[in-house]
């Protein structure tokens, strides 16, 4: 389907797992927790168990990385995770199988695939979208797909009910935020710092002011990630975001215990639980505080 032929698909829609998850979080006044791991790391046979462990540790949805040979937006931790996964031939089709297997035990937790465009295009967008839907994937975040290039590519994904999540960055201008929000469905992922995944220069104050600008442009839920390494940073960002994404901190844990995979589910679960507890101890009234998003949408006109 081409953009502009009168039929515009919107991805998962209001009754999707993803929308329901964010609606529930909003109703409960809670901040969502989104862990990221790279599929196939340290070995593909552990991935499904690790996904379940993440849910047990308090994940509201799971971002599963699709290994790519040239992950140019990722820091060394996730690069090495990709190399470990590719060493055991974890490619897109294997990742889809893992999601299907995860779904047999967990029909509720949304799963987002995060990766780069080339493996997806190689499978074929339409083919990928159908297989992803059949496997129980809820959405896709393609790191190197800019909003400008999206209108030619995402309709094929949205047509199968997949949400397309886009990144926002500290460098995104207001016109770009509007453009990106228009292409996105499900949620928006705000990259909290100028850098690659796992960097250590998080500036909470600047995230706060940028998020206010983003809120003025969109009603989509906003997840914040890059640089979230512990319960403290998670809580700091959790005060202003709808969800917090934690990736490299978990992948570092996998790397640390890769030779003892039996302990990995417990380690990951515990690590995530500390963040979950920190987020849940945030005052529920934060949503009504003047520096947070009001419950009623902000008017779009500026």
């Amino acid at each position, binding site marked *: 389907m081409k953009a502009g032929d009168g039929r515009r698909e919107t991805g998962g829609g209001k009754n999707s797992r993803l929308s329901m998850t964010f609606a529930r979080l909003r109703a409960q006044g809670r901040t969502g927790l989104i862990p990221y791991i790279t599929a196939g790391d340290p070995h593909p046979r552990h991935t499904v168990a690790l996904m379940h462990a993440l849910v047990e540790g308090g994940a509201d949805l799971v971002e599963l990385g699709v290994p790519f040979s040239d992950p140019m937006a990722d820091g060394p931790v996730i690069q090495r995770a990709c190399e470990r996964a590719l060493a055991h031939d974890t490619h897109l089709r294997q990742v889809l199988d893992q999601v299907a297997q995860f779904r047999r035990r967990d029909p509720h937790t949304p799963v987002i695939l995060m990766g780069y465009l080339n493996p997806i295009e190689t499978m074929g967008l339409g083919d990928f979208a159908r297989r992803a839907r059949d496997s129980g994937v809820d959405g896709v975040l393609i790191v190197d797909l800019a909003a400008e290039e999206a209108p030619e590519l995402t309709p094929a994904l949205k047509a199968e009910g997949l949400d397309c999540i*886009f990144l926002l960055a500290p460098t995104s201008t207001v016109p*770009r935020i509007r453009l990106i929000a228009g292409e996105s469905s499900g949620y928006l992922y705000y990259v909290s710092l100028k850098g690659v995944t796992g960097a250590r220069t998080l500036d909470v104050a600047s995230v706060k002011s940028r998020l206010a600008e983003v809120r003025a442009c969109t009603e989509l839920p906003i997840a914040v990630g890059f640089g979230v390494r512990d319960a403290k940073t998670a809580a700091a960002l959790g005060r202003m975001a709808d969800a917090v994404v934690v990736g490299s901190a978990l992948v570092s844990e996998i790397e640390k215990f890769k030779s003892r995979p039996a302990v990995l589910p417990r380690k990951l679960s515990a690590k995530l639980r500390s963040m979950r507890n920190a987020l849940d101890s945030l005052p529920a009234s934060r949503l009504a505080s003047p520096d947070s998003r009001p419950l009623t949408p902000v008017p779009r006109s500026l």
Partner: protein
Amino acid sequence: MAHEGYSDSMTDFSQVPDARGHFGSYGGRFVAETLMEPLRQLEEAYFRLRSDPAFCAELDRDLAHYVGRPSPLYPATRLTQAWNGAEIYLKREDLNHTGAHKINNTVGQALLAKHLGKTRLIAETGAGQHGVATATVAARLGLACVVYMGVDDVQRQSPNVYRMKLLGAEVVPVSSGTRTLKDALNEALRDWVAHVDDTYYVMGTAAGPHPYPLLVRDFNAVVGREVVQQSQTLLGRFPDALVACVGGGSNAIGLFHPFLPHAQVAMYGVEAGGLGLKTGRHAAPLSVGRPGVLHGNRTYLMADRNGQILGTHSISAGLDYPGVGPEHAWLKDLGRVRYVAVTDRDALAAFHELTRTEGIIPALESAHALAYAKKLAPKLGRDKTMVVNLSGRGDKDIFSIARREGIALT
């Protein structure tokens, strides 16, 4: 001579890329969001400055007095005799300051960086020629410089590593992935994302996200413009054929671009055939790859059936790259340029032949163009003329060639 298979006189080559940086279905801007606004700012600055007479005059001055342009168009009479066919002219980019065409681009991009108020230059490099050219302009402008280079390339191009260090650049060896040019490019992009406020990324080839393929082409097109003039003066007409090596493709597009509208000029881009196209050990995405997305643009790539980028092989570090500039991808589909490949062995033979026949030691990259020119010359015939882009000099390669040929240098 019209190129076989190319007869489209309707294509307006001045209209590409389009506003979004597309060459047909190739090119574009496929990067993480953080880089989109910096790329837009770069594009805006470039469009403003390229029509600014003061900027153009400054660039022309640098090209004349710092780079040493114009470079000669040299009639290689002994080579012509030896190859027994078309008359061979060598475009002597090897005579530029720093010894390759790469300086045309870095001088231009350094001026852009200066106008953008950036204080730090970063670059990726394969053979080290682009790294040296970037370190050179950084030294001249008093800018900090960091060059990313695959560990394997650091070893096989050690003279250039030392040159960069002498020039004050920091050379960062990249040990991720296949430890060559593509991984150096990943690392440079990561650096840029993290230091986007004060840092200018000097992309070394006509690839990457828009506007790099456009501006690298434009800065190198001085080569082709000079050949347009020089061939008129020397021959009274355009050459019948142009031959250039293609890794990312900046020297080739620089030579080709001004000639694209002139259908009587045939063009050949020569990729690195490595150990042979059938072995899979090569770096020839246009010859045997297929379209995909890498490093910010859609182009021909060497990738496996899962879409993972393949490791490449070439005797020449500067051609050892699994992608190619998007304009070449477009020109291939259009049939305007013919893309071929030559093996390591043929390139090495051409390296020796030019050295002994004309007293010019070519870069191994340029030796690929020479090796194909040798095949083409007798086919074209004696009444035809051919320009081969001698994109760089071979001093950097003599150590690895000696090693390969079992000669101990102390």
